Structures are given as structure tokens and as C-alpha cells.
């Protein structure tokens, strides 16, 4: 890739983000408020204190996982819309294990629950992966359907069978204490960072950063990653090279689902310590936007998740202190995504023109060339 192409790759999301703030500002003006004031509140909400920054990181963790899930599958040419369902099942399996194995010491239980989260998500993603590989059924449809099933099933079990005794709230009892991921407040105060005790930021942040590294490592340093990328960029050539395309597709989905399932480390092990019906409200779907903004690279996902977390966290502040509805943040996020997608296309065309290729007709997602690297 040329320097020009590389530069545009880097710049286009930044330009898009800047432009979206401009558009958001116009919206604020249109409803008769001062955009500078609103943005000032937004950033104060996100960066104004150690507590705020801790919240941003806390909010970023699930988005990192779901963003990685989408990005990873995308590398194999698969569009995994099922992050939401996968994270529900991951959280559910994690909770079940946390309720069942209460007797185990933390040193055993924590790894076990992490594995359970990943396994739940992996299992849920394996189904559409298998259907795609075996019967060629499009994964978009099946992952969406699997979302409905996951939400419905967990809801049923939580309300009807696993509800905490004597409670109206549709939630399970708390998982064993040994399975709680410690909060970061104590450790951080040891190194002089005064994160308030109440801040929900916990050790799953470390897991999320590990997952970013792991995704990168799998894709670029392992034989499996090589095969996944080959299948994603040219399935016919992969077949020619002796790669088992079907198995690779299933593997990619399984790993993708595992990343989504790990959301439970934050939501269950680190924060709620129980399964609350309908707790996610779209974290899985946000992952699609995160992956898109992050151009389907692990590092990009990390940065995009942070940006979205900043917006989400700042939105709360706007909600509390101004008359501007927090929906403005939704507008901002949506505008950012649209601008990134458009910006991608525009830059791709310019790069193509400079490099003498015909401008790319957008490929169907399943045959997406892994241009970004």
C-alpha cells in the first residue's frame, strides 16, 4: 500500500469524526443551544475527573469486545451481526457457571468463568457459522435470528426459572464472590491514581486490551489467521491452496463469537455480578459501528470503542445538565458512522485513481477484500 493510501486510511476516520462534530454542532444550533457550551459539557463529562475517565474506560470495554467480534469475522469475509445474541449467551453461561461452581477458589473460578463467557458466545456464533459453511445460508440472516432467540431464551429462563427468590426484578441471584473480577480502584490508588471506590471500572479492561492483542496475534502471526485472511480476500484461491474454507469460516465465527461472549467479563463478573434480563441494550450492535469506524483492525477497534465510550459517557452529563436531549449523542454517533463510510469510499476512489485501478464498486460484504491492514 502506498504512503498516500496509508495516510488516507488513517486520516479518513479522523476527518469523519471532526465533520460529525460539525454536523452535531449544527443540530445543536438548530434547537437553539450553544454548541460550544454543549460540547464543553460533553468533554467535561468524559474527561473532567478521574472518575469520568474511569467511566469512559468502563463503557469502552464491552464495545472493544463486540467491535473485535465484528472485525474478526469480517476478516474471513463474514458479517457477524449476531454480537448481541452471542454476548447474551456468553453472559448467561457465565452466570450459570458462577451460580453452580460457588465452592471453587477465585484462582480457579475466575478463569473458568472467563472461559464460560467465551464458550457461550462461541457456541452461539458457531451455529450460523456452520449453517453458512455447510449449506451456504447467509450469515447475516442467521445471526440476526440467533439474536432474537438468545434474548428470548435468556429472558424466559431468567424470569421463569432463575429469578432471584423474593424479587420482582427479572434477574438472577448474585454469582459466587470468588467469581467477581476485582475493581481497579484499589490497584490504581496504589500507584497514585485516585479512582473513586464506587467507579465500576474493573479488571476486564485488562482482558479487553489482551483481546485486542490476541486478535491481532491470531490474524497476523498464526497459520489460522493467515487462512482466515486468505478466505476473506479470495476464497477460490484459498481453496486452491488447500485451505479448508468451510472449517475456516466456522473457526472465524467461533472466535468472533468468543470475543463477543467476553462482554460478560465486564457486565457480569466485573459489574452486575448477576444476569439482568435485557441488560445489554445494543452493545452487540454498537460493535458493528465500532468495527466499521475502526476499519476492522484490532487497534482501530480499540480507538473507535474509546471514542464511542467518550460520547456515551459525555451524553449522560449533557442529559443531566442541559435541555439538550441525550439523543443528540445518538445523532453524533450515527453521523460519524455515515461520514466514515462515505469517507472510506471517497478515499478509496482517490487512492484507486492515483494507483491506476478502476474505482472499486463496493463489494458485497461477504466478499469484502481485506483492504485495510
Amino acid at each position, binding site marked *: 500500500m502506498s504512503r498516500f493510501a496509508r495516510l488516507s486510511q488513517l486520516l479518513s476516520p479522523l476527518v469523519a469524526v471532526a465533520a460529525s462534530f460539525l454536523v452535531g454542532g449544527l443540530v445543536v444550533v438548530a434547537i437553539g443551544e450553544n454548541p460550544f457550551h454543549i460540547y464543553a459539557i460533553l468533554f467535561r463529562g468524559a474527561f473532567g475527573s478521574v472518575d469520568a475517565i474511569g467511566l469512559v474506560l468502563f463503557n469502552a470495554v464491552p464495545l472493544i469486545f463486540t467491535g473485535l467480534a465484528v472485525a474478526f469475522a469480517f476478516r474471513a469475509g463474514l458479517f457477524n451481526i449476531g454480537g448481541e445474541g452471542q454476548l447474551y449467551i456468553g453472559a448467561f453461561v457465565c452466570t450459570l457457571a458462577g451460580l453452580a461452581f460457588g465452592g471453587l477458589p477465585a484462582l480457579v473460578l475466575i478463569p473458568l468463568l472467563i472461559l464460560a463467557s467465551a464458550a457461550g458466545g462461541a457456541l452461539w456464533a458457531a451455529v450460523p457459522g456452520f449453517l453458512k459453511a455447510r449449506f451456504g445460508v447467509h450469515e447475516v440472516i442467521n445471526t440476526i435470528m440467533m439474536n432474537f432467540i438468545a434474548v428470548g431464551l435468556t429472558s424466559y429462563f431468567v424470569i421463569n426459572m432463575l429469578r432471584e427468590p423474593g424479587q420482582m426484578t427479572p434477574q438472577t441471584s448474585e454469582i459466587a464472590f470468588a467469581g467477581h473480577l476485582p475493581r481497579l480502584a484499589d490497584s490504581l490508588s496504589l500507584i497514585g491514581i485516585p479512582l473513586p471506590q464506587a467507579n465500576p471500572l474493573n479488571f476486564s479492561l485488562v482482558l479487553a486490551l489482551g483481546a485486542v492483542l490476541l486478535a491481532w496475534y491470531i490474524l497476523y*502471526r498464526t*497459520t489460522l489467521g493467515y487462512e482466515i485472511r486468505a478466505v476473506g480476500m479470495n476464497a477460490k484461491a484459498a*481453496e*486452491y491452496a*488447500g485451505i479448508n474454507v468451510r472449517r475456516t469460516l466456522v473457526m472465524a465465527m467461533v472466535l468472533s463469537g468468543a470475543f463477543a461472549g467476553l462482554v460478560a467479563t465486564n457486565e457480569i463478573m466485573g459489574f452486575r455480578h448477576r444476569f439482568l434480563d435485557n441488560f445489554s441494550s445494543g452493545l452487540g450492535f454498537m460493535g458493528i459501528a465500532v468495527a466499521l469506524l475502526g476499519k476492522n483492525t484490532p487497534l482501530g477497534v480499540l480507538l473507535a470503542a474509546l471514542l464511542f465510550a467518550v460520547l456515551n459517557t459525555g451524553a449522560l452529563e449533557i442529559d443531566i445538565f442541559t435541555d439538550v436531549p441525550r439523543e443528540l449523542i445518538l445523532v453524533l454517533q450515527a453521523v460519524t458512522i455515515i461520514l466514515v463510510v462515505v469517507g472510506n469510499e471517497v478515499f478509496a476512489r482517490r487512492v484507486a485513481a492515483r494507483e491506476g*485501478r478502476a474505482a472499486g464498486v463496493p463489494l458485497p460484504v461477504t466478499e469484502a477484500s481485506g483492504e485495510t491492514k
Partner: protein
Amino acid sequence: MSERHAVQMRGITKRYPRALANDRVDLDVEVGEVHAIVGENGAGKSTIMKVLYGLTPPDEGSISLWGKELSGHRPADAIREGVGMVHQHFMLVDTLTVAENVVLGAEPCSHGCLLDVAAARERVRQLSSEYGLSLDPDDLIENLSVGLEQRVEIVKVLYRGAKILILDEPTGVLTPQEVRELFVILRALREAGRTIIFITHKLEEVLELADRITVMRDGRVAGVVSAAATTKEELARMMVGRDVLLRVTREEARPGEPVLQVAGLSAIGRKGSHVLEGIDLEVRSGEILGVAGVQGNGQTELVEVITGLRRASAGSVTVCGRETTNRSPRQMRDLGVAHIPEDRQARGLVLGFTVAENLILGRHHRKPFSSRGLLSLDDIRTHAERLIEEHDLRPRDPDGDAGHLSGGNQQKLIVAREFDGGPALLVASQPTRGVDIGAIEFVHTSLLRMRDQGAAILLISAELTEIMTLSDSIAVMYGGKIVAQFEGGAVGEEELGVAMTGGAGASAGGSAVRSDGRPPRHEMGAR
């Protein structure tokens, strides 16, 4: 300036991050001439044509058409001045007719942007009879042979009023018969005053058709000569900078044990009819078996079945004495079967992977490139550097995107990869498609050397000369069967040609055969 010139390009420079594709190139094309551009792979031929057509802006230099300097650098600007490009990868919609394809995308639209198919049909008919294209405007594209599809591309360009036609390696995909027909058409176009620029690696074609020739080397113009005043040898020397063996000499083969045995092999196509029927053949170690045939007569399918990419419906494939019918591609590779696929971009390469990554494709899972599921980047790199050196891949950069290599260098990459590692059986489909004469010489001598070192080679090629030069014996395929078999050296081009078109008792297949000697293509599933 002079009205004599259809095209004057001055000082065109085009830099890519890893290559200087064009270095102060001057190109003059006179009105009404056939102008050939020749040069080694990566010399910058395609680039200079893309610059002319406005597909890529030059970094420096100017372009004048018909004596007027061109202001913009977009295809629309070039098209307005009468430049047309016949694309190498045909851009046709299979399910539409010839006329519909011709109007599709034709600008500007008159009649309120409704497609005026009726007028187009008339115009296609007219152009077709004017230049002897034998196109029926109502034929569906999917029923056309490759040669006819190419003519549809030519008509598309003419329909848009092109007075300068650019053809980038138009003969690479054609059979010798189709090449002859194309030349008749191109001559008719020249008679009618159109200007033609074409790129090719086949020097006979250049001498036969061109008026003048621009020779490129390393991004520069190495010389401009008149076809009447030059020879193949001189052109080759100008291109490569040394004398090139234009023909390799083949020693007698000393065949050993059978490596590939195919018996009674059949396969069924998508439409349920046989694409292969009762194929028997044997290739021994130290022997080259050439398979001749008009494209689309089952060669693609035969190769796919042998290499594990397609299932056989009956019969058996045996490699080194082991029954391997319907084994997976990986199992075949692990048994030492290497494969140069006929379509380099569709099968042979992962565009978007680097050169180094592509050079391990197929062996990426084995030592030394991979151990315990991890890639060994150092070994991958050393391997790439060695093959780049041995096969003179340009640019010499293991980390470049394979999609940015010139067409010939992409082919050379695949050849380098499949030659390496001492395969027991090499299945080579069109191994020299699109590579320059120096590289052809290299590939041919390497094939013979591999043979002499004991490899069994199954060579499939549309180039009869290639088949005849290299093969120890020759099988001719027609309609999914082997219809004739000859000793190498004991058969003439004529005789082969007759067998290839189903002559000499080959019509027993009973499938509908069209006038160009192809069975209906959709039955063959080959493009």
C-alpha cells in the same frame, strides 16, 4: 503541432511507492497506424496506456491528442477525444444480449436516458458487417466464446465513437484461430482510418500486424522501430538487453515410473452433463505430457479433478501409486502435486496479500513456514527473497501487495511458488500466459530441467508452439474426451489443429458443436 499524430505523449512520469513505472516516456502514434508496445514484464506498458486513457493521472508530462493538448486526466476526457480501451478482463453482463451490453453505460444518453436498444442493434449490425465481426446483436453473452466476447468489447468501444483503440494483451486469452480472426478485424479497422495501439509479448504478432513499435524497458522508451525494418531477435535484444533464446532445445526424455495415472475419469458439470468422459492418461517421472485443445473442452475440469478441486463422478486418479481420487486439495499438495492454475487472479493469488505471503500459499501450513500453528516470519521472508531473486520478480520487494505487480510478474510469482520445493507432479496450466519472452525462456528451461530431475509434468496450454516444443507426448482434448494422442515431435501443427476441432473421428461425443469448434460453453462450466 502535426496533424499526423493521433497521440503524442511527452515526458510522462508515473511513480509508485515501490516502482518508477514510467520514466519520462515519449510516445508518438500516427493517425491510422497500428502501433505496438513491447517490453519486459513490469516495463510500464500497461501504465502508460492507463495514463493515456485517463485511468491514472501522470506525475509529470503532457498528452496531446490530434495535435491538441489534453486538459483533463480522466477517462471521460480521453473518451471525448476518441480514445477507447478494450479491457482485458471483459466487463460484460452475461445474461444480457450483445446489443444491450453495448448500450449499457454508453454515454451520453439521448432520448431522456432510456436505453435505445433498437438503435444499438442496428448500429451493432452495421459495425459488425463493416469490420467482419460476425456478431449477432441478439445473442446472449453467455453463449459466446471468449473470442466473440472480446469483439463485443471492441464494438462497445467503437459504438462510443473511438478513433484510437487501446488493446492491452488482447491475444493472451485467444486460440491461434481467434488470433488470426482478430488480426483481420484490426486490419479492417486500420483500413477504415482508425488508430490502434496494442500491447503484446508475442513478437511474431508484432511483426505481422504493427506498423511501428515502441520498445519499453525499465519504465523508459528503449527505442522506436518500424516493423518492416526489424526482426524478432533485434526486438528481443532491445527489450531484454541481451540475446534471448527464442526456442529451447529439448533432449530426449528418460522417463521412469508412472507418477500420474488417470483411468476412466469422468466428471459432471453444473448442468448435469459430462464435462469429462472416460479420460485415460499417464505421465511418468521425467516426462512432459502436453494437453492441447481449444479452451473450454474439459482441460479446466481435468486439472481441477486431478488437483482435488473438483469431484470425479467415475474413474480414478493415482499419484505415485497411491489412489487419490477425490482427495482434498491439501492432500494432493502434501503428496507433492504442484499446480499452476489457468486464471492467476481468480485462483492463483490472494490480491491484498503481500508477495511473501503469496509465495507460501499452499505450503503455508508446513514447515518451515509454520510450526505449531504459528507463522515463522523469518523463514517466510527468506523464502520470498530467494524466489524473488531466482525468478527475477520485480519489484524486488517481499512486502509489496501482490495486486500491485504487473500482470506478468503476478504470473511469475505463481510459477516461482509452484516450481519450488521439488514437486513429484506439476500440473501447469497456461504457465507462460502474459509473461515476457525472457521469462518464457526461463519457464521453459525450468520445466525441462524439472523434468530431467525426475518430475512428471502435465502441461496444458493454448499455445501450440509451447505444447510442441516441450511435450514428450501430446494428448488432444475435445468435448471432454481425449480424442487423439501423439508422440512429441512426431506431429505437425496442422494435424493437431484438426484433432482439436473435433476432426478425425472425434465427433462421437454427439454434443452440439458450434462453428468455432467449441461445445456449448455453459456445459463446460469454463470461462
